[in-house]
């Protein structure tokens, strides 16, 4: 069957993003279940969460294909709290 131009290996981009989000979530859960802790682990988990957030903003919310102001609010929303949370964890370590 001929595939549309917006599909890779038969999957829509949003389906790939969905699979990535599910995988990253399981990785995050396993980190918690294994009892891994410490600054490096916490910052790694935070980074994973920010990447997931950016994927949702860009692909699910449809902001990734925009130009101008509306492309950035979700990215900024992830970036600023991400920096604040990361700073707080660094100071607590």
């Amino acid at each position, binding site marked *: 069957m001929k595939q549309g131009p917006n599909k890779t290996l038969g999957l829509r981009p949003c389906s790939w993003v969905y699979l990535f989000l599910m995988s990253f979530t399981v990785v995050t859960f396993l980190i918690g279940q294994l009892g891994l802790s410490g600054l490096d682990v916490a910052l790694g988990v935070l980074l994973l*969460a920010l990447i997931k957030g950016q994927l949702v903003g860009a692909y699910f919310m449809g902001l990734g294909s925009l130009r101008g102001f509306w492309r950035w609010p979700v990215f900024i929303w992830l970036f600023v709290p991400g920096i604040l949370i990361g700073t707080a964890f660094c100071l607590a370590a």
Partner: protein
Amino acid sequence: MPAITALPEQANRYPPGDLAIWIFILAELLVFALFFAAYAFTRMQHVALFNEYQQQLDRRAALINTLALITSSYFVVRAVAAIREGLSHYCVRWLLAALSMGALFLAVKSVEYAHHFGQGINLSTNDFYMFYLSLTFFHFMHVIMGMVILAAVAWKAYRGGYSATEHTGVETGASYWHMVDLVWLILFPLVYVMR
């Protein structure tokens, strides 16, 4: 003078859905961002307490809830894609599937709350539970709100109220639901995993 070139067709300047919902979404995101920052900086002063009580949370329930919300968000993406192709009946089915995932989230979270309240845990138990209960309940209310919006959109779609050319309502509801998902994607690792 350089020639004025047209923007690519897909590169729009405005997000999908009604612009008003995006103002609302940004306001909601700002509130959650303040909540997250407050949690992190309060934890800084009580690291041992936060780490101890975080271990008492049901991380498996949180995993189920995270997977449920991500799946529901994906279903909503498919609902929007369906209505853009004029497939109202598929749009309704995807929305109902998303609603079922939202219901699963509410059920699992309710069981968690029942467990906590059964143990006598409340907002004044300690700083950790104050943040945990307020943050998650605030989000819980947003899930309910999102489900009401999705149900209204599904009902209108079922009645033939949307088409391939006019489906702003579907995109508006979808945007709100993705915001609910987005917030939980930060809340889950912050409250349940990071220590």
